[in-house]
């Protein structure tokens, strides 16, 4: 099995880019691959806990929690999050926060790097 590193910079709400990236991560985990998931820029919105599900807005907290239980490693850019007021005490349990070099380090032994979207 391989290792997939996914980077996504799109926000939780505003497009379905992040939804796609999370679904892709889930599909890769189901196939037995290791998945590292990095969010930066507006993508750090994904890390916030207490998301409320509405039918008109993307809601990924539950999906991310389920994927973490299946082994997903998911990390937010700490500076990008702090700049947006997303602090550690408002971050989903298990969601890591690191500087950008974490993402690059993850690519080191990745079989594939998929850098998805931005705004």
């Amino acid at each position: 099995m391989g290792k997939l590193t996914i980077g996504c910079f799109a926000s939780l709400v505003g497009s379905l880019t992040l939804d796609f990236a999370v679904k892709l991560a889930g599909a890769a985990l189901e196939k037995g691959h290791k998945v590292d998931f990095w969010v930066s820029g507006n993508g750090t919105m994904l890390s916030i806990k207490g998301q409320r599900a509405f039918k008109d807005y993307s809601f990924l907290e539950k999906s991310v929690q389920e994927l973490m239980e299946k082994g997903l490693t998911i990390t937010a850019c700490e500076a990008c999050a702090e700049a947006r007021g997303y602090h550690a005490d408002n971050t989903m349990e298990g969601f890591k926060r690191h500087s950008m070099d974490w993402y690059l380090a993850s690519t080191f032994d990745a079989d594939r790097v998929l850098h998805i979207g931005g705004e």
Partner: protein
Amino acid sequence: MATTTLGFIIQRPPYKSENPKLALTHAIASQSVEVYLEDGDLVTADIAFVGDGVLNCLKDQKAQDTYDLSSTETHIKMSLLLDLNVMVCKEDLDRFGLTEDDIVMDAEEFGADINVRVVPYSEIAKMMEEMNHLLFF
């Protein structure tokens, strides 16, 4: 000891989105990646501006004066200071009627030893073929 090579391809114009600046800050982060790796292992970053992305390289940007934010120009200069390979597509500069006189080419005031390289797209394509992974911004 091993090296993973990353190509950062910047194709969006500056300031309209965060992408170009994120590309540069992530590329610069290659300088501190060793803390996560075994001794001797490296991740390197090459940067190429193509398409509308070449507009990021215009010099005399006023982001600091106007918005109190570091400019994309400053990040390019930081990349040069860190000896990152920064390329700009010549054909796309020509398309905008721009020359080397219009863009940031060096960072002498930062103490950088290397310059931005204006190159034909074929050279950027060659770089992309040689990289382990490509990241498009």
